[in-house]
Every structure is written in structure tokens, then in C-alpha cells.
């Protein structure tokens, strides 16, 4: 029974923030390069896929109640395999933390602060997230409420600022690049959703429970994904309809281009800084939650109790600085990484582990009954 308890709505906002950030920052560009104006369809399909896999995760969560995955995964899958699974999950969360950090860093470094060395962003970002993760899941949950609010505000103000240039015809024709290609591309967008799906497994045991709440995990997960879609989906649609898919494909950070094309009247003619401020809270919340879970998962495998939580978390985040900087230092390589390596590496873990756990639970139940 974990001592931390977070509210149900806060859990929803955490899930919503977990799908936010990178999905509209980088993924839209990656998808535009593959499927052009169908990128928003791919993203929508990704959300739907995520919602389907959520059925499996909520099944697992329901089976174990408030037992954390750190306890039940080794029990369910056996000690060695369980440890491996946990470790993989930890690496997945760490990777997702790094990519979410890079989202903010490149936004800043490409558009607002071009002269500042990237390493400064990397280090400071990690330190800030470390501070948040150190304060724990409850604080991260509170931040994510604020993050969801600012995310929705951002989407709303972007919509207001760009409706003049919204051209519905550019969203058409549907499935111009073929259904198969769109579905394949949705796998790339799945990387963002899948992290939230996997994290829900770790998150829900901490959610404050009331009797009437039992078995409503699926509703909570879908609500979280729904809020996430609400604050994310406006972006791909508007990127296509306002900028055009060809322009979206041209840029590494397409959403910033959309932000730069927004005009909140002729007085706020530039929007990047507002966008950055509203955008970052959600991504910070995401990073904090991911670093927290990454640490918890890895710490459950690599026994480092003697260090104390703060110290081991510091060590982990300091170690993460190296891959972090390595990825961010070459933008072309990073873009390639997002298009090819990251989906191949992360999807099997993020979707595979929950599905495997659900299968194990089913097998156990059947065996128990027989």
C-alpha cells in the first residue's frame, strides 16, 4: 500500500500531460514527412490505439488494486524476468523523459535563445525536473493540473490566433497516402501515447481510492487520454489547415511554426514566448512524472536503498545527461532517431509489457479456476 495518494482528477491530468509535448512538437513534423496532410489522422488513430491498449492496463490495475508494479511484476513474471521487465520500463521512462526534455530545449534553442549553449538547457532542465521529482508524485500531480490548464489555454489561444488562416480544404483528401501508410505512420505517434499507457500502470496504484471507484480505471484512463487529445489534437489539425502539410514537413519543430503564424490581434503579433510559457508547464509535469517512475523502476531492480532516494535520483538524472546531450546535439540525427529508432525501441516495451502482463493475469486466473 503506497503512502502517496493522489486524487483521481490529478491522475487524469497526469495522463493528459504524458501524451502532450513531444506529440505536437516533433511528431507532427515526422508524420508530415511521411503522410503529408493525413498526419492528423495518424495521430487520431494513435490515440485510438492507445485507448484500446488501455483496456489491458486497466485490467491489470484492477487485478492488483493498490499494489505497485514494483511488487507484483516480479511476482507475476518470475524474479529474473520481472526484474528485466521493470528495468526495461525504467529505461523507457528515462528515454521518454529525455525526449520530452529535448522538446522544450530545442523549442528554446531554435527559436528564442539561439546563442545559449545547448548544454546549459540540458543541465538546467534536468536539475529543475530533478527538483520536481524529488518533491514527489503528489507535487508533480499538482503541477500537471496547472500544466493541463495552460495546455488547454495554449490550444485555445492558438486556435483563436489562427482561425483566420484556417483552410479546411488542406485537410483533404483523407488517406491521400493510402490507409496502410497512415496506419504505419500512426505507430510513430503511438510512441507518445504508449508512454502514457505504460505509465498508467504505475500511476493508478497511487490514486486515492474510494469504494465506488473500484473498477473505474478504464474510465479514468480514457478520460486522461481524452484530455490529452483535447490539448494535443488541435495542433496537428491546425498545422495542416493553417500552414499546410508541406510547410509542416519542412520544419523540425512544426508546432512552433504554427505558433509563429498565430496572431492574437495585431498587437500580440508574435506568439512564441507566450506559447513557450504556456507549453512548458505541461512538459515539465510530464518529465517530472517520467523521471520519478524511471527512478522507481530502476531502483526496484538495482538495489540502492543505502544511497537514499534523493541521492539515487540525482545519480540517475546525472547519468541521463549524457544520452540527453548526445541526442540533442545533432538535430538531423535526432529527427532520424525519432522517425526510426525510437518507435522500434519504445513501442515493444510500452505496449508489449502491459499486454504481456494482462495476458499473464488472464493465464493465472484461468489456471486458478481450473
Amino acid at each position: 500500500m503506497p503512502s502517496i495518494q493522489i486524487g483521481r482528477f490529478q491522475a487524469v491530468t497526469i495522463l493528459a500531460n504524458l501524451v502532450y509535448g513531444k506529440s505536437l512538437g516533433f511528431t507532427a513534423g515526422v508524420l508530415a514527412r511521411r503522410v503529408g496532410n493525413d498526419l492528423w489522422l495518424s495521430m487520431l488513430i494513435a490515440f485510438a490505439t492507445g485507448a484500446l491498449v488501455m483496456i489491458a492496463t486497466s485490467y491489470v490495475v484492477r487485478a492488483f488494486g493498490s499494489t505497485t508494479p514494483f511488487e507484483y511484476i516480479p511476482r507475476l513474471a518470475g524474479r529474473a524476468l520481472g526484474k528485466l521487465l521493470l528495468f526495461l520500463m525504467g529505461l523507457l521512462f528515462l528515454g521518454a523523459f529525455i525526449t520530452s526534455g529535448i522538446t522544450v530545449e530545442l523549442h528554446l534553442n531554435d527559436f528564442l535563445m539561439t546563442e545559449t549553449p545547448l548544454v546549459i538547457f540540458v543541465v538546467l532542465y534536468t536539475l529543475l525536473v530533478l527538483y520536481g521529482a524529488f518533491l514527489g508524485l503528489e507535487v508533480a500531480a499538482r503541477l500537471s493540473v496547472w500544466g493541463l490548464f495552460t495546455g488547454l489555454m495554449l490550444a485555445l489561444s492558438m486556435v483563436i490566433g489562427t482561425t483566420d488562416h484556417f483552410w479546411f480544404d488542406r485537410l483533404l483528401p483523407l488517406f491521400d497516402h493510402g490507409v496502410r501508410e497512415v496506419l504505419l505512420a500512426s505507430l510513430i505517434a503511438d510512441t507518445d501515447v504508449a508512454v502514457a499507457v505504460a505509465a498508467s500502470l504505475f500511476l493508478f496504484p497511487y490514486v486515492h481510492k474510494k469504494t465506488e471507484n473500484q473498477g473505474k480505471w478504464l474510465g479514468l484512463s480514457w478520460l486522461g487520454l481524452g484530455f490529452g487529445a483535447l490539448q494535443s489534437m488541435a495542433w496537428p489539425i491546425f498545422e495542416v489547415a493553417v500552414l499546410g502539410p508541406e510547410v509542416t514537413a519542412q520544419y523540425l519543430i512544426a508546432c512552433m511554426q504554427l505558433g509563429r503564424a498565430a496572431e492574437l490581434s495585431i498587437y500580440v503579433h508574435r506568439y512564441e514566448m507566450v506559447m513557450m510559457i504556456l507549453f512548458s508547464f505541461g512538459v515539465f509535469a510530464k518529465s517530472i512524472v517520467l523521471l520519478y517512475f524511471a527512478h522507481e523502476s530502476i531502483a526496484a531492480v538495482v538495489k540502492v536503498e543505502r544511497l537514499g532516494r534523493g541521492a539515487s535520483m540525482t545519480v540517475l538524472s546525472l547519468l541521463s545527461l549524457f544520452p540527453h546531450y548526445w541526442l540533442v546535439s545533432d538535430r538531423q540525427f535526432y529527427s532520424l532517431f525519432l522517425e526510426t529508432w525510437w518507435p522500434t525501441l519504445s513501442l515493444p516495451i510500452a505496449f508489449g509489457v502491459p499486454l504481456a502482463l494482462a495476458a499473464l493475469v488472464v493465464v493465472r486466473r484461468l489456471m486458478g479456476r481450473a
Partner: protein
Amino acid sequence: MSRPWPQIGLLLLLPLLIGGCWDAREINQLALVMAVGVDQAEDSNRFLVTAQIARPAVAGAGGGGDGGGGQEEPVFTASADGDTLFEAIRNLARFTSRRIMWAHNMVIVIGESVAREDITPVIDFFTRNQELRLRTWIVVARGTDARSIVTTKTGMENIPGASIAALLRYAELPGESVRADVARALWSFLASDVNVILPAIRLSPHLAPAGNQEGEKASALQAELKGVAIFNGTRLVGFVDEDAARGLLWIRGELRNSVITLSCPGHPARNMAVEIRSPSVDVTSEIRGQRPTFRIRVDTEGWLNEQDCVTEDIDVMQLQEMTEERFAEGIEEDIRSALDSVQRNLGTDVFLYGFRIHRQHPQWWRTNKDHWNDMFPEVATEVSVQARIPRMGIYVRPMNLTAP
């Protein structure tokens, strides 16, 4: 108990950064570019970039004009050349005392010679750079170089760049040119089914007030929004004007407001002015035996705002009927003239025909998109116009000398 170490750690980090301030640039040490012109330098392949830089001390001083620089110009204009645009701009720094900042640039003027050659460098440079905003206006200098457009003082604004931007912002009112910003230009440039069109600006003699300061003002030139520059791929191929420009906007469905001149009933030499209100255009395509045909359906209202002749023999219903008929004819003529000048003479698809057929018949487009440019001049267009005149200013009967 509580541990303050993270907080203290964050605070301790601060002094380490004091040596930073990498991006800090005082606003008064920047050269804020208000307008930029790109030309081809004479007798060479080099670019000549002309930047119009605001002098904040004068331009920003508001009412206090006598605070030091009463006679000074509010802008400082500098030109420099280079093999690439980037080099030319870096060369500007040789004699501008401040760091050039593009963020407030309002308008990019492309010289006609550059546009006829290739606009790729302009589009590339100004959209690759993170300082320029995507809503910067972009125009083509018509019959002149960009440099003279940028340096010409126009209208009532203090800063010439601002006046060109204002011309473009209100380009909807005359309805004879387009509004184009960098985002739109970039998309048209990149998209395979669309061609670029840009507004054109030329210099025309300023009509000075009679007898007032003749020597100076009568000869002064002023920037004037005049026509649409039509591109084929990366090159400028021509301009369309007035009626054809309005027709082009009709076909693209981008007309918002304009004035059309019709002949007076019974007095062919006299005119009536109808203001086009709430126009709507529906363009549909049809594939007839591998050949696409387009149908343009216009449905619009107009307000009769001026009638320059006395019409004693008709009542108001007749007048309305006759005007509506002429109005519809006028619109169709405009569209026809655009079809003539663009489709026959220039042969480049700036009607968004390719864009529409791509969406309406994706299968056909997939097989035929490579031949589209050859096919386009042959494409047939049907025009049907529904025009109503529900309002004649605040009059309710024709301009008659006696009651009917």
C-alpha cells in the same frame, strides 16, 4: 523533516550563470529592420539587399519630435551586396552600427529581376531564419527594383515599411490584389499542386494637392499596390491587373470586397458603381473522359453605391433587375478575362485548379498529376453567376428628376 537542500542547490547555481547572458541584447543596441528589399545587383549575379532600419530615437519618440532630431528621418536605409543573401546581409553590418534584427520586419520586397530569375533564395532565406515571423508581407516590385520601393515614403505612416504593410493589410478593399504573407508563399512554393502568386507594387506619380509645394511633391513617386504577380514554379512569368486580377480572386475564392463598374441603364457612357458584398464561390470539377472541366458558381450580393445618370423611365424594381443582370455579366466578364490572361497567356495554374481536383478526384490526380501543367491551358471552365442587389445605399428609388 524538511530538507532545504534542493532549494539551496538551485539558488547556488545562479552565480554560475551570471557569466552567461548569452542571448541578452539591449533593445537600443539593435537595428530593427522595418522593410527589406532584394534585388539583383547591376551587371552581376550578386544580390543587393536593402534594409530599412528604424531610428528609435526619432520613430519611437511619439509626439516629442523636437527632442533632439526634429529634422532627422525616422529610418536609415542601407544597401549591401553579396553572392548569397546571407552574405549580403552580413555585409550590411559593415556600416550599420548595430546588430541587425529581423523580428520586426514588416515587408519583404522582391525586385522584379530577382523574381523573374528565381525566388528560391528569398523564400529559403526568410523562412529558414528563426527571427522572421511567418506573417511578414511579401510583395514583388513591378517594373522597378525593390530598393526604390523600400526607400520610397508613402502614405501617412512615419516608417515607409509600415505604410507598405498597411497597403497590404487593407488590400481587400480594392480587391484587385492578393494578400500574401511568408507562410502562404512558402506553402504555395512547396506544395506540388499550387503555384505562387504575390501582390505587386509599383511606383506611380503622387497626385499632389493643386498649387501646393509644386516643385517637391508633384514629382514625388509613391508605392502603389498594382496587380498580382503570377509565378510558374520558381519564376515570375507575368502580372495580371484590375479586372483580370479581380477575376483571379473570384476563381480562387479569395475575393472579399471590391467595386465593379457597370454601365448605366439607357446611358451606356455613364457608370454605376456596385460594391461586391459577401461573395461566395463554389468551384467544382468534373472528369469527362479523362479531361477535367471546372464549374465556377458565384453567388454574391452587391450594393449599388453610385448611379451617375438620371433614369426617368424606370422604377426601382426595373432598375434592380437591370442592375443585377449587368452585375452578373460584369462578374462573368472579370472571370473570363482572368481565364484568358492566365490560362492562355501565362499557362500556369494559379487558380487552385490542381489543388481542388486533387481533393475532389484524388484517384484521377494520382495518375495525372505529372501531366497537369501541360493539361492546364486546355481545361475548360463553366461560369454561372447568381448576383443580387438587395440594397441601393439608403435610397429606395432610382435617381429620377420626377416621381414615376
